[in-house]
């Protein structure tokens, strides 16, 4: 069964590679992101209402820990194997320790199309995973230097569009509950898949643009952009398995670990570690890992989950 949203991504990718003039206006791209973030938050929040919050605490702590550990695994690979400069290795590591909401949305849609349940509080983990990798990345690049404006970094990330909308949606969904969102469902829930399709059309075009810089950066970056998610995905799946999550939940945990940020982290790194080459990390996360995850990663992580559960 071929999901139309994947075809929209390919349509964007191909027309981008063929240098078509097709392009979504920037403000439309922003509208689509806003709708996706709010929809994911709202859906999660409504389900959260049914959940005793305290039971989640240990899992939340573990997820935050994962956000600290992943970049620490990526960093030495990039520094020693990839022979990147320290600042670049640190910056790329931060991207891969964090998470891509676009990839998360595709995974949600993948599971929904197959009627596979997943624990509804996953968006909480997305929120939790944004920040830690950025902190690690900055410290790897600069040490615990006094001239890092931590306040500014925290403000930039915690009050960035991503977290505000996701967390805001979660809270609103949680407060109003299932009946409360009936009236706004037509916009946020019913249109979700169509909005995701348009979003991926534009992501395909953007990805095609990033692929142009691939040549300049050599094979290692391409390899890293594929191997890292495959490994990190497994770590994420294992963590989900130890949490005792469902098949869908394990898949999503793998996706969170395997996906790399291309919005919040690049912006934060540009301000805090300006010496790092932004095009290097963006090419990896957006030009390689994002399309890999969309096209091959999500089904792979689903197999991880099935395999782990079949072993149990």
């Amino acid at each position: 069964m071929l999901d139309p949203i994947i075809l929209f991504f390919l349509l964007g990718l191909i027309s981008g590679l063929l240098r078509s003039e097709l392009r979504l206006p920037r403000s439309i791209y922003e509208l689509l992101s806003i709708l996706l973030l709010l929809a994911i938050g709202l859906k999660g929040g409504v389900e959260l209402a049914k959940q005793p919050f305290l039971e989640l605490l240990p899992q939340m702590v573990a997820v935050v820990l994962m956000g600290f550990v992943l970049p620490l695994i990526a960093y030495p690979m990039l520094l020693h194997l990839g022979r990147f400069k320290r600042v670049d290795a640190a910056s790329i590591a931060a991207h891969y320790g964090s998470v891509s909401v676009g990839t998360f949305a595709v995974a949600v849609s993948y599971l929904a199309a197959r009627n596979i349940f997943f624990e509804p509080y996953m968006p909480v983990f997305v929120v939790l995973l944004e920040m830690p990798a950025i902190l690690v990345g900055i410290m790897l690049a600069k040490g615990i230097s006094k001239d890092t404006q931590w306040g500014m970094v925290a403000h930039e990330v915690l009050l960035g569009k991503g977290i505000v909308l996701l967390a805001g949606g979660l809270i609103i969904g949680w407060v109003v509950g299932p009946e409360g969102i009936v009236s706004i469902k037509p916009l946020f829930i019913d249109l979700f898949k169509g909005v995701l399709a348009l979003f991926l059309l534009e992501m395909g075009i953007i990805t095609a643009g990033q692929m142009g810089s691939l040549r300049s950066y050599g094979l290692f970056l391409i390899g890293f952009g594929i191997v890292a998610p495959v490994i990190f995905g497994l770590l994420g799946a294992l963590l989900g398995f130890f949490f005792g999550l469902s098949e869908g939940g394990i898949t999503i945990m793998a996706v969170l670990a395997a996906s790399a940020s291309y919005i919040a982290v690049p912006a934060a790194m540009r301000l805090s570690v300006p010496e790092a080459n932004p095009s290097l990390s963006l090419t990896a996360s957006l030009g390689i890992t994002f399309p890999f995850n969309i096209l091959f990663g999500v089904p792979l992580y689903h197999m991880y989950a099935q395999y782990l559960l079949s072993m149990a």
Partner: protein
Amino acid sequence: MADAEKNIYKLMTIMTEAAIENDVLNELVKLGAKGYTSIDARGKGHRGVRNAAWGLSANVRIEVMDTEENVRKMAAAMKERYYRNYAMLIFLHDVEVIPHDDLEGVWE
């Protein structure tokens, strides 16, 4: 001090990454800028193409008008702070300002 008779001031134009627009504007105000004008732009320079369509590659064009002395001070500070690690181009030229009569010497 500016050529007060003829109201000649310096206009500084800064082309740079949109990612640091707020930072740059705050810095300029700290350095004493009484105003600025900023515009979204696309561009190309020695740091590559910035076509404004995607966050990190968006571009901005900032103008600040002030006395030559102040503008030179700001330009030096900008260069010091951003030239090394960010896409940025700064140039200056003279402009004759039509003065506000009731704001006598406001840009001095």
